[in-house]
């Protein structure tokens, strides 16, 4: 089961690389923001899987909880900031 956790974590990290394509190429800034949000949500899962892989889930689950909340705040702040910026520019 430990190698299954490692394989799943490696699979999700490969999904990071695929999402980074949208973050780098995305035509608008909202594409980049939503790609970054998807990477953040997947990072919570990777943190939990690494915790179970090393047998230290009691520590990593707190890190994942904090990261999940901070990711939401970051994406909402990006949404508010870019809405106001583009409206003033046009």
């Amino acid at each position, binding site marked *: 089961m430990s190698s*299954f956790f490692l394989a799943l974590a490696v699979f999700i990290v490969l999904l990071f690389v695929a999402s980074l394509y949208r973050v780098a190429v995305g035509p*608008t800034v909202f594409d980049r923001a939503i790609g970054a949000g998807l990477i953040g949500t997947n990072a919570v899962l990777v943190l*939990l899987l690494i915790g179970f892989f090393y047998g230290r889930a009691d520590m990593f689950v707190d890190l994942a909880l904090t990261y999940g909340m901070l990711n939401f705040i970051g994406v909402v702040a990006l949404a508010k900031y870019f809405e106001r910026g583009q409206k003033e520019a046009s």
Partner: protein
Amino acid sequence: MTWLAASLMGVGAVFLLISCIGLIRLPDFYTRAHAVGKAETLGSMLVLVGLALYNGADLISVKILFILGIILITNPTATHALARSAFRSGLPLWKRADKRQGDDLGN
């Protein structure tokens, strides 16, 4: 129980893959937001339920279920906030590039 947890995590990984394919392949920001907002949430929740089942009844499982609740509430909310801000900023909606001259409605 271990096999149930592993199969739940496998199905969740498939949903994560579908969400990532949708983020790359779909033509518009709003359709990409659709892929991220639904498939990503379902995949994350399946993986988290699988981890909690594997761990058993414990404080760690309670915290994992807290993470599940947070992702269940915040991930669609964040996607909706981004799509709303894009729509208010005047990002144009995607229209199909019609190759035919006339369609069935006589236009």
